[in-house]
């Protein structure tokens, strides 16, 4: 095994891991707060990609401005969905299932709207950071390194927000115990809307981040949602550090596995590995029991 291949595999693993993490963190946040498995979460990623395509690719807006626009637009969409669709469902019996099916229906609606509005063909966003860097004999594209840096910044910002701000503390309090948080004067409804919009915004930012590297089409969301679901459960449902760890683990398994085996074997091996991890630690890597 040559050294530069290892370096490349590490970079690819970190990038894939951060990409899964950006989507999985929101999924985990929403599950922790509201107990909803949001199957429409991948579509937020897809819509983020289209925001990048139109604002950055077509209208020539600054890339970072496009990312902030995606955060605000899709975050707002998330808050709206929480208010008109998911919040009324949480008080009903069997809410885990009904909210899942509602999210599934929404996912179809967004996919079809994307096909109708944007067309079903792949769209490619022009590359933002052009060129390559040589590190220790490995050839790395600046684009991927930039994605790693921006992804790290976004996740650190989320972490600071959750740990250091009043709203972040409120979110963590609601995730631990809804009634107790409400008794302390936390407005649970507002916190639910906030965490839903943060989750959707993060997924959209992943869309902006990955649009220049992968292609976007209306079905990218449904391709990615099942993998991030796996990441969330691997890390521990509702656990934020767990989701990050699970995402990086899956990213590394995929990038290193591809060095030695073909793609189907890698997916079989990664499933078996995750099954073994969960048999040993059923609550997930960092989950509470």
């Amino acid at each position, binding site marked *: 095994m040559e050294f530069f291949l290892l370096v490349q595999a590490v970079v690819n693993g970190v990038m894939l891991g951060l990409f899964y993490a950006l989507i999985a963190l929101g999924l985990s946040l929403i*599950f922790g707060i509201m107990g909803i*498995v949001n*199957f429409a979460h991948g579509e937020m990623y897809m819509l983020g990609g289209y925001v990048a395509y139109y604002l950055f690719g077509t209208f020539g807006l600054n890339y970072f401005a496009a990312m902030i626009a995606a955060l605000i637009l899709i975050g707002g969409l998330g808050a709206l969905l929480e208010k*008109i*669709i998911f919040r*009324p*469902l949480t008080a*009903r*019996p*069997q*809410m*885990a*299932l*009904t909210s*899942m*099916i*509602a999210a*599934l*229906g*929404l*996912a*179809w*609606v967004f*996919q*079809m*709207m994307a*096909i*109708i509005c944007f067309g079903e063909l792949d769209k490619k966003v022009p590359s933002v950071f052009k060129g390559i860097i040589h590190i220790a004999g490995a050839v790395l594209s600046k684009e991927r390194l930039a994605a790693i840096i921006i992804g790290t910044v976004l996740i650190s910002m989320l972490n600071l927000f959750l740990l250091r701000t009043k709203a972040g503390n409120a979110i963590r309090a609601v995730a631990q115990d809804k009634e107790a948080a409400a008794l302390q004067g936390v407005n649970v409804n507002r916190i639910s809307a906030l965490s839903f919009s943060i989750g959707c915004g993060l997924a959209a930012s992943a869309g902006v981040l990955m649009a220049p590297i992968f292609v976007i089409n209306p079905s990218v969301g*449904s391709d990615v949602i*099942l993998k991030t*679901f*796996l990441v969330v*459960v*691997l890390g521990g*449902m509702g656990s934020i550090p767990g989701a990050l760890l699970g995402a990086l683990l899956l990213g590394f398994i995929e990038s290193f596995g591809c060095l030695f085996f073909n793609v*189907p*074997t890698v*997916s*079989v091996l990664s*499933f*078996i590995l*995750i*099954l073994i991890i*969960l048999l040993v630690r*059923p*609550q997930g890597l960092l989950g509470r029991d």
Partner: protein
Amino acid sequence: MPLITQEPYTFHILCLIGINVIFACSLNAILNVGELNLAHAAFMGIGAYSSTLLVMRLNLSFWVAMPLAMILAAIVSLFIGSITLRFKGAYFLLFTFLFAELIRVLLSNFGVSLFGGIPGITNIPGPSIYIGNLVRIHFSSKIHFYYLILILTLFTIFVMRRIDQSRIGMVFKAISQSDVLAESIGISSMKFKILGCALGCFFAGMAGSLYAHFVGIITPPDFAVHAVLTPIAYVVIGGIGSVLGPVIGTVFLMMLSHFFLRQFGFYEMLIYGVIIVLIIRFMPEGLISLPRRLQMRFGKPR
């Protein structure tokens, strides 16, 4: 139904509805013990592939192959269930999800000469009945198949109803409401969960076998995780936990998409999705609660 129309397309859809009703009922059997099985389509796939291979490779008759396929699906589910049913809720979902993906990847990439790889298996023969030279029915025509599926669908609903009304059905309901409470009165919830799972997978195997011999082509993605999401919507839209809920949900949504929304072409899935979201939003108990809701709104108080 044959009195009204002879159009093959209608019978094709009716047959598919019947197969989906069987599948939705079998999914509901597992939901009855409080768990959602994302690998349910994989068990349908086990039924479909095993019945196809038994007929095409070993030259068995369909009437032998279908029960064998059903039993095989149930046996695999006993094995998988005894491992995975130790986990609850989201973790059970994940394990079944992994199992479904595993089956899909294995079927598409390994044993290609047997399972046909990604293109799957084609030209699967339909069943036929020969009794001497007197009775010869070949179920290649849609109308004959329609009667076969109709009988088996009614049989499935009948069995599900009998179980629902029996003592075992009561135990299932108790476990789905609270398995801890059920265990406190001496019910082995694990044993009954495995039983409920095997029951569901038994009928999933039947749906799979019928699907294979009716459509004539099976491919691995037909039985992937995505294939189980739509039937979950049928069950939830119809009403979870009741016997007739999944039947109503399947018939309603499939009729809607195949006979009514077809004319909207491109917008079909869009309208379909909107209708599902609206029904869930305003009727979370499912369509089966509609009469009661109407009565509450317009009827006289009793």
